[in-house]
């Protein structure tokens, strides 16, 4: 067999059920091997064993793989050609790294003899990706190819997950090889560190210290991040909360890690978190950070974050995250689910009972008195009302992808998330253009699920070509475009911090007709909605359509995202806007912030 056959065989052995990618000269042998593999391994139902989903742009393939990985927990796989094919995947690779998403990217490369010669479609993939990915391999010895591809999967999914790039020169793809079936590369340092972390178990003393501090607390709070989802720790978190009654707020990446409809759920915290979650952070005297990293969108002013917390505990799989931003008093590095199970068992075995009734009542009051709200009386369609209308039908069970901007934050705030892996968003990188391809990838992971892309007019433009991919693949995806005539989030900052000078962010005079665009790409159900009275009926028709559907909603262009904790500000400086009640003494309007102190 050839090197290309070896690559495909390893993919099959690793359980890969779909590939996202775009062909080209330097990867043709692998594409041919995929074709032959599918010809030989038909499912009998006419579907390919390893279907190849071809995007409009390799960035789309990368985000499809990311959406697939986020929705399934499995490794998303991208196969692209050298040079421009590879560089077009840089953004999704970095995005996956920043959000800890397991991905393997196979890139074709010019033949080994041409490496470094400025050959046609040559790019220094190892250098470029080395700076962005969890790891990158350049395979120059065909004898190492099989072990390398297999090891790439091991690295992508182990520890803190991330993207691994395998750069394969064309001559290596064409080499004559035999298949071993098991070989891996020696990576002794990585494996030893991984083993140490994965085998780390909380000892009795550590558990006792944890509960001694928790027992002292009157107002404990759990701050749960994406690690709860990556670490499959949602059931363990739920069991911990059931046992001890500690309220939970999650980060943007942690949404779904704890059922947002639970009475002790405070939804999201941070820059655009709920007012009640942020107040609870202000009030708590004990903070337990689970797979969360005190990112600047959560702790913009680390020194003032959770100012009353006398004890901060942290559990993470990544040793580098412990104490990186905020000093903690207790920590454990290891798999989150096992650690939480151990804590719950220890607490139960020692008959730990916390008297948190006052705090729980306080939290319930915060949720009631500072509930999310918006301009319900406006004659214009409010974006929050669109999300609420969808959520009334989907009941927190849909898979939701987003672009980046205001629409992303409204979706985060106003959807319920009952379970992990329903929320696909570019959290750390904040990459516009993520939503549509990520939703496509998720639909491949969950063919029977209702997958909805909530997109913005700016974001969707970035990968608009993927509309056609939806219909080509016959996916029943639902695309909601919240059109506010421009880059709303940028406009919001320009309103707040730049004297309403809307440099480059106003697109109200642009001529794009999104309805025609969707129709041109083969969407059968396409509608533009501007009439508030028709909202509910349109949404239910839209969601009920059996096939790809596209709904453009012309929303109030002045709608803002609130609450807001300004960049670099403390939660005490949170502004809640005109429709959410602030606590006595707190302001509802933004104070002018010094422009140089923010990002």
């Amino acid at each position, binding site marked *: 067999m050839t090197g290309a056959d070896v690559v495909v065989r390893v993919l099959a052995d690793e359980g890969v059920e779909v590939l996202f990618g775009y062909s080209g000269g330097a990867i043709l042998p692998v594409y041919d091997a995929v074709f032959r593999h599918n010809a030989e391994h038909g499912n009998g139902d006419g579907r390919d064993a390893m279907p190849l989903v071809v995007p409009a742009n390799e960035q789309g393939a990368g985000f499809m793989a990311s959406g697939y990985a986020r929705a399934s927990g499995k490794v998303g796989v991208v196969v692209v050609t050298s040079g421009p094919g590879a560089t077009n995947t840089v953004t999704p690779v970095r995005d996956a790294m920043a959000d800890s998403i397991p991905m393997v990217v196979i890139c074709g490369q010019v033949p080994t003899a041409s490496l470094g010669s400025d050959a046609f479609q040559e790019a220094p993939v190892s250098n470029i990706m080395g700076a962005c990915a969890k790891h990158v391999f350049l395979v120059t010895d065909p004898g190492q190819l099989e072990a390398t591809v297999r090891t790439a999967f091991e690295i992508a999914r182990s520890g803190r997950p991330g993207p691994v790039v395998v750069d394969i020169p064309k001559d290596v793809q064409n080499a004559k090889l035999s298949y071993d079936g098991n070989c891996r590369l020696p990576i002794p*340092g*990585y494996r030893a560190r991984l083993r140490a*972390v994965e085998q780390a178990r909380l000892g009795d003393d550590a558990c006792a210290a944890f509960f001694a501090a928790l027992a002292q607390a009157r107002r404990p709070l759990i701050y749960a991040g994406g690690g709860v989802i990556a670490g499959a720790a949602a059931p363990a978190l739920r069991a911990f909360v059931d046992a001890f009654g500690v309220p939970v707020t999650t980060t943007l990446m942690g949404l779904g890690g704890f059922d947002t409809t639970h009475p002790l759920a405070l939804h999201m915290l941070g820059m655009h978190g709920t007012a009640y979650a942020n107040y609870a952070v202000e009030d708590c005297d004990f903070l337990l950070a689970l797979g969360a990293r005190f990112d600047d969108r959560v702790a913009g002013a680390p020194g003032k974050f959770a100012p009353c917390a006398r004890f901060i505990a942290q559990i993470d799989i990544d040793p580098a995250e412990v104490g990186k931003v905020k000093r903690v008093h207790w920590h454990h590095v290891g798999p989150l689910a096992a650690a939480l199970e151990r804590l719950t068992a220890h607490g139960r075995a020692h008959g730990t009972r916390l008297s948190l009734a006052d705090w729980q009542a306080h939290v319930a009051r915060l949720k009631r008195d500072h509930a999310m709200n918006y301009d319900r009386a406006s004659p214009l369609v409010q974006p929050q009302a669109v999300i609420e209308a969808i959520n009334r039908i989907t009941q927190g069970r849909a898979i939701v992808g987003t672009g980046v901007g205001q629409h992303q934050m409204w979706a985060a705030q106003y959807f319920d998330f009952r379970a992990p892996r329903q929320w696909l968003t570019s959290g750390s990188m904040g990459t516009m253009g993520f939503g549509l391809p990520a939703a496509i990838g998720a639909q491949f992971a969950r063919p029977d699920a209702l997958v909805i892309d909530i997109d913005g007019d700016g974001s969707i433009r970035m990968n608009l070509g993927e509309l056609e991919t939806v219909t080509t693949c016959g996916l029943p995806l639902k695309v909601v475009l919240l059109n506010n005539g421009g880059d709303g989030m940028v406009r919001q900052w320009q309103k707040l911090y730049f004297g309403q000078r809307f440099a480059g962010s106003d697109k109200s005079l642009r001529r794009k007709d999104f309805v025609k665009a969707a129709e041109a790409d083969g969407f059968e159900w396409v509608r533009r909605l501007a009439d508030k009275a028709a909202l509910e009926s349109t949404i239910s028709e839209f969601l009920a359509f059996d096939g790809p559907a596209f709904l453009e909603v012309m929303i109030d262009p002045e709608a803002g995202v609130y609450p807001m904790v300004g960049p670099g500000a403390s939660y005490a400086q949170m502004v809640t806007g005109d429709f959410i009640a602030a606590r006595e003494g707190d302001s509802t309007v933004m104070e002018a912030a010094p422009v140089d102190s923010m990002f």
Partner: protein
Amino acid sequence: MKHTLSILLQNEAGALARVAGLFAARHVNIDTLTVAPTHEPAISHLTVVIHGGEATLEQIVRQTRKLVDVISVRSLGQLCDVGYLAGEAVRSNAHGHADNHGKWQQSV
């Protein structure tokens, strides 16, 4: 404050660039960098001198340990190494090359 890091690195394509790139990306300036062979041809020994505070040192050591081809990292004369990480585990590992780190440490 100056700190010296001793790093054992697998001799893979681009490995040195990844270490240097990590320091650059994390805004840690390298004052000096020496690369030397070890008795094991597949492994190089890097000595990196940086300057920065304790927090910078601790963070860059931990980040360096996340690089796949890094076998072990020692911060010479610093206490930041006593954490959870597996310098020890590496040393007892079957490949044996990390012994080099133990020996080298004693000679300092």
